[in-house]
């Protein structure tokens, strides 16, 4: 059974009377443990598809089944619970909370659990260790480099042990060296921790790290 099963999904944005079809009857399967790269030109709908898989947007029609749950049929509150349990999101611009240090940023998703403060702290530190930033636990985002910020963001994404990691151009804002480190880390998460990863990227070098590549154009898959 596929970890991500996108079935005949259409996504239409309406602006006044104008309709913009971003995804047009798209279907895609990503198997458990896969590392999939979504590629395509700007406006092809890859980020929209990623948002649907992550459960932060809903399709106009069709089904998006992630870890056995049809995301398209969930309400607002159920979707939030789904995201907190099943999905780890990695943003292009890291989106760390500037007033929180690295540990507190990583700990943020755990505030939604029943874990004690000590348990939360322990898990956050473990996640930081996994991404190689245990020594920067008390640093604030402004005190970290771009690559380090992204690694903290990855720690935040994995701290709840989600089934799927979705990454929206995770190396898009990084220099080549940092990008390589991040890609190495993501490869390790897939290989060593068996995480299913769906990544949107423009970068062919990043896409090469993935096990499968999918090309979108004008809202449909080309391969």
């Amino acid at each position, binding site marked *: 059974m596929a970890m991500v099963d996108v079935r005949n999904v259409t996504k239409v944005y309406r602006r006044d009377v104008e309709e913009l079809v971003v995804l047009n009857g798209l279907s895609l399967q990503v198997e458990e443990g896969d590392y999939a790269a979504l590629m395509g030109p700007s406006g092809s709908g890859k980020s929209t598809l990623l*948002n649907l898989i*992550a459960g*932060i*947007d809903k399709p106009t029609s069709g089904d998006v089944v992630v870890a056995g749950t049809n995301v398209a049929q969930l309400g*607002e*509150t159920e979707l*939030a*619970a789904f*995201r*907190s*349990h099943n999905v780890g*999101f990695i*943003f292009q611009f890291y*989106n760390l*909370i*500037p*007033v*929180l240090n690295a540990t*507190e940023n990583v700990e*943020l*998703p755990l*505030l*939604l659990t029943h874990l004690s*403060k000590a348990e939360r702290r322990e898990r956050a530190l473990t996640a930081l260790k996994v991404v190689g930033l245990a020594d920067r636990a008390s640093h604030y985002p402004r005190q970290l480099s771009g690559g380090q910020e992204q690694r903290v963001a990855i720690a*935040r994404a994995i701290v709840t042990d989600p089934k799927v990691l979705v990454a929206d151009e995770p190396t898009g804002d990084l220099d080549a060296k940092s990008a390589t480190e991040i890609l190495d880390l993501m490869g390790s998460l897939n290989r060593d921790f068996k995480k299913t990863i769906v990544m949107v990227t423009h970068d062919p070098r990043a896409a090469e790290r993935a096990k499968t590549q999918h090309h979108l154009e004008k809202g449909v898959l080309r391969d």
Partner: protein
Amino acid sequence: MKFLPYLLKHLRRNWFRTTLTVLAMALCIFLFCTLQTVLAEINGLLEGTSARRLVTRHAVSLVFNLPLSYGARIQSVPGVQRVAGVSWFGGSLPAKKEETKADQDSSTTDFSNFFPNLAVEPEPFFAMYPEYVLPPGQYQEFMGELRGAIIGRKLADRFGWKVGDTFYLESFIPPYRKADGPFEFIVKGIFDTDPARYPGTDTNLMVFNYKYLYEATGQRLGMGTFYAEIADPDKAGEVSRAIDALFENSDAQTRTETEKAFAASFVAMAGNLTLLLNGIGLAVTFTILLVVANTMSIAVRERRKEIAVLKTLGFTSKLVMGLVVAESVLIGVLGGALGIAASQGLMWLLTHTPGIQDALAGLGLSSLTLRPLVAALGFANAVFLGFAAGFLPALNAYRARITDMLRTV
């Protein structure tokens, strides 16, 4: 509670703005508490009145005295149990109370030491004022000395007077002045009161025998007011009308009202103080509501991406809304606590600063202090303001879609 550190960190993000907002809130609650305390104190003065006592005065103005014969005629009205003549003496201490009589003249009168002092007909007056409790024997001592004065506990504490002490007063009302200098008084009794039984009773008061005033001024004076104790408070209106009807066709027509209405008329001399103070309070509160709401709107607008991140991580819209409201309420709580503390501080300062302390005592506001109820109302007001100010921005955060907020630059 686990979100509290997160909220506090956000408040510290722009500490200057947070400080200003908290100070604005504090100012609002400070004004609210201070104004309401003044109102409560004024209302407290009215609390010290009895529904069983009526006050008859000259219909034109308190400035004019009533003929002494009116007392007996008021006594004859059905429903009236006893009548006591009471005249506002308006006496002030000379500049130095320890000066001898010979050293003093009217030019050295010290109005900063002003306190209420009344010339009364003692027997009926004390009979109708069970609030004033005198130790045994002191009343008899007072009645045996024409220059005797009975003072309240607060007044005794204020000037350090004890039984047997002598002091001098000179009235600012010309007919109540003597050619040979100020009136000499000897403290013959110090009264206390039971605040639980008679709330609002002020012991910052001095009374003396009207006979002393009458005789010392050439036996030409009338009486400022007549206090009548009635049997049935429910018939106060009926008895008041009967008293006034007695003098309808005389040179000195009267106006009779309950003691509470009489006291309230003094407050009304300053205009509609309640409306004025409440109006100021409301205007300030509304302004602060706009200030805090604006601050919270800016704070939420600045954090649109962060709110999107929280929602992406699994925070529900309700929880995000709750966090924004809680942050705003926290500003209210901090501002409220600060405002209440500042108000209490001002009260303490006013009641412990020489000069101001005396002026307040003269107005019957010697016990100006922040009441727990006013403080609680002020705090509730701060919490409500925080909630109301944060609600709309929180609602916007609640409604906002993650994908829209993530696109925000």
